[in-house]
């Protein structure tokens, strides 16, 4: 399926390109030790600038999901699953992605998942499969 890719910046580059080394890189504050997402140059919890990308396990669970059936564009291959994945490192550390590799109707909230990367141009999209 075609995808609109993000414009890379100094702040988001690690997240979108970590997959080149098979790493899911999530910003973490070394002052308060909290992970946070989306990445930013300042910690939203304690406002420290001592932040940077750190590799996480890439494992998590489905916090919620939806099966998209609507053919928004002719190129889309529906149905496909959009999910909010919560990473195992921290409660509420989560982001939107896709779940692939299993029938769409098998996806459920709480399902364990792990990351795999799909390269599109200079972006390595962190997608998830059942773990």
């Amino acid at each position, binding site marked *: 399926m075609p995808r*609109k890719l993000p414009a890379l910046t100094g702040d*988001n580059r690690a997240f979108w390109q970590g997959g080149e080394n098979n790493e899911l890189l999530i910003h973490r504050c070394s002052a308060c030790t909290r992970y946070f997402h989306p990445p930013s140059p300042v910690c939203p919890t304690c406002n420290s600038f001592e932040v940077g990308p750190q590799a996480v396990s890439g494992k998590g669970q489905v916090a919620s999901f939806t099966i998209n059936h609507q053919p928004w564009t002719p190129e*889309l291959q529906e149905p496909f699953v959009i999910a909010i994945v919560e990473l195992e490192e921290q409660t509420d550390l989560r982001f939107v992605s896709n779940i692939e590799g299993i029938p769409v109707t098998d996806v459920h*909230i709480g399902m364990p998942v792990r990351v795999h990367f799909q390269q599109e141009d200079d972006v390595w999209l962190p997608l998830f499969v059942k773990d």
Partner: protein
Amino acid sequence: MFDRLYEKDVAITGIGQSEVGRPSQLSAMRLTADACLEAIADAGLTRDDIDGVACWPGDNNNGDSFSPVGPNALKNALGLNVNWFGGGYEGPGPLAGIINGVMAIASGMCRNVLVFRTITESSTRQHNKQASALTNKTQGRDSSFAWQWYTPFNVLSAVNLMAMYAQRHFHDYGTTSEQLAQIALTCRRNAQLNPKAVYRTPMSMDDYMQSRMISTPLRMFDCDVHCDASTAIVLSRRDVAKDGRNPPIRIEAMGAALNQPWSWDQISLTEGAAFDVGRMMWARTDLKPKDVGSAQLYDGFSILTMIWLEALGLCPVGESGRFVEGGQRIALDGELPLNTNGGQLSGGRTHGLGYVHEACSQLWGRADKRQVADHNVAVTAAGGGPLGGSLLLVRD
């Protein structure tokens, strides 16, 4: 510490609305002028009495059908001389124009503020079905603050995000599609009594359940209907308002809080901004949810209406499904008449101010065949995800 809550010094004195077209042959500015001049006259004012203009989200300077007319353009079109004017997307959702207008009056900047909201998504979609796609908010790669985190995963419409809120609500609280359907069915029943409503043919539970699945668990009838329309509200300083044509409708309390990230996936999936907003609003009044006689709650997607019911304390947390089940409680003759003009699901996506217009119509006893029992307290709220604002309205 302030000892006053200043929104109480402001009242709604007039309302106006253009035709609601699907599509309209009128231009966006003509729709806007129709709504605004009607609202000014309804307030018993003249153009020269208006000294402030507010709008959400305002002009994006790109002719965007989501908001084709902003305060600058309206000011010129009507020849308004103002002490203050403002618009812009960044605020507490579709009621932000009202909230800003209230603040402009409460701070002494203005006496009468014209608030408006124009939308022409229907006519634009006649020639560009993708006009509203999230991927069209940026050209080339996605450089937006918010959308770049969703569009690479083919989140092309807000419905995908709302669907994940609904899925989580179903999971956590046992909410069912049959319960959710009651929002759509109630709106359709009410729309049949509203001559301006876009969809007025009867809808059954079977019709709902058989409607096309868009993004599980949300079906086509869980999504509002695009239209071309403009709605306008006149806000007046309370001492000015008492001389108007209509009994003033006081802004008893406002909610505009966001105590979570501005994000569609980093906030509570079952609360959004709405619970923050509700807590703030009720902290600013002695009134209680049981005092509310009618509710006009955002139904851009049906699940959001359910979340607002809970957020505003109109039913217990997690209980909105059971509260609306069967539809009796939220019917025109029920304990809490809801979205009495058909909401956006059947009335048309006037996007925010349509709820305020309808709340005032009900409080003033002008809702004709859909008029509910006389009451003097109404609540309205708009937004989903990180967008949220609410108004508690009292006709003295």
